[in-house]
């Protein structure tokens, strides 16, 4: 025996909602659009679903092109001894480019793509220490610039939030979100159907409650995690 799947297609969220609340299928398309918007909002503001993508530095422009589906930049990391080392955002890296003969490139004389603070690597342990892994996030150009320390051979991983909506295949969502979707669609219904306007605030409150319920679920720590923190505070006393 197996239980029902933990992931369900987003379309099924809507067909289930129509079924549960005795709605006609006339506005099916409309509510699918709202359900997709709900999922994007959840990913952006509440969710824990990060997209992890291996990215390659453009060796000429010294930057990483953001993926098309990136909504919110979270982190740029590079592997170090089995773990990730995070880049620190530094807004001072020169992020202009120069076009030569119709080709976009970078000009050293204008400080573009030049290595920053050479020979001034200071560890965190010392006063004024800083992380020498730095990047500048240029959302307008949808690029992440680094200085001249890295090459295309360096492994880099981009962590970001996407819409969660699959543009080419089936979009599946966690089934524990069903009550959030239900409440969201009921709330939106009060905006679409004018005769339900009086229920707007009530249904928005319910949506908010469902969202908070899910936030608690996904952010709650397990007993072992709490114990780990608790035990880590212990100091062993000398045995005499």
């Amino acid at each position, binding site marked *: 025996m197996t239980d029902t799947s933990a992931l369900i*297609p*987003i*379309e099924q969220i809507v*067909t289930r909602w129509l079924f549960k609340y*005795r709605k*006609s*299928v*006339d*506005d*099916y*398309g*409309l509510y*699918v*659009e709202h359900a*997709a*918007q709900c999922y*994007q909002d959840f990913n952006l503001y509440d969710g824990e679903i990060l997209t992890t993508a291996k990215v390659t530095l453009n060796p000429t422009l010294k930057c990483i092109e953001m993926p098309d589906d990136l909504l919110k930049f979270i982190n740029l990391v590079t592997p170090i001894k089995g773990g990730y080392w995070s880049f620190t955002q530094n807004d001072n890296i020169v992020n202009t480019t120069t076009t030569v003969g119709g080709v976009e490139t970078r000009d050293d004389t204008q400080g573009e793509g030049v290595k920053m603070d050479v020979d001034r690597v200071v560890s965190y342990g010392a006063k004024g220490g800083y992380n020498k892994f730095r990047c500048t996030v240029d959302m307008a150009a949808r690029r992440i610039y680094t200085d001249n320390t890295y090459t295309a051979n360096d492994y880099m991983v981009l962590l970001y939030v996407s*819409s969660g*909506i*699959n*543009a080419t295949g*089936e*979009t599946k969502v966690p089934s524990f979100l069903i009550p959030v979707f239900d409440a969201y669609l009921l709330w939106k219904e009060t905006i679409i*159907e004018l*005769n*339900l306007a009086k229920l707007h605030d009530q249904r928005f409150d319910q949506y908010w409650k469902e969202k908070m319920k899910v936030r608690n679920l996904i952010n709650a720590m397990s007993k072992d995690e709490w114990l780990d923190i608790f035990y880590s505070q212990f100091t062993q006393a000398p045995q005499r």
Partner: protein
Amino acid sequence: MIKQEIRSLVRNSLPKIDKTNRFADRYIDAVIEKALASLYHDVFLTNPLSLQNYTKVYYTIGFDYNTTGVTYCTLPESIIPLERKGSGVIRVSAPAQGQLIFFPTDFREMDLIANGSFFNSVNTKVGYAVNQTRMELYNLSMSIKGLRLDLLIPFSKYAEDEEVKIPEITDVIGTNYRQVAQTFMDRVMAILGVVAPVDTKDDNASVMTNAKDN
């Protein structure tokens, strides 16, 4: 009741003026059609999901593609227009019954969806938009051999021995909307009762003759 029984019920409920002047069948049918259409409208206001009870089903209706890439099918019968997406096409399905595959939409929505929407990315179902004579299909990529259409059709389009379901509603209760409704016979008689039979021969003739009209 079958169609001719309904007409007979109406005819026999009318007062007889004399032995020669009678209501024409076509006229009675038109009145019944009007009364029924208003009843269907009330059912729609009361509970749109109940419209399914009054549909006629057409099987294996073929569809075609025109030169501009529009997939469409010609409606097999005229429909009663309702103020909903899909109008009088209450349900469309594949010959094999099952999950929702078709959903009603309208031409405005089809235009907007195609101009960028989440829906366009996640949708796997087929939308159908209806005008007076045909139904256009959106996103029909699967191979389906013919469609099943559940249509709300006018009284005049039923065959003489076909059963016509009449909604027996007396109250219309919609959201923020309630009124005491007339029954089917009330509505028919309200129209026929004020017209003398002599004027209902449906020939617009100004001079009466002795020829029987039906």
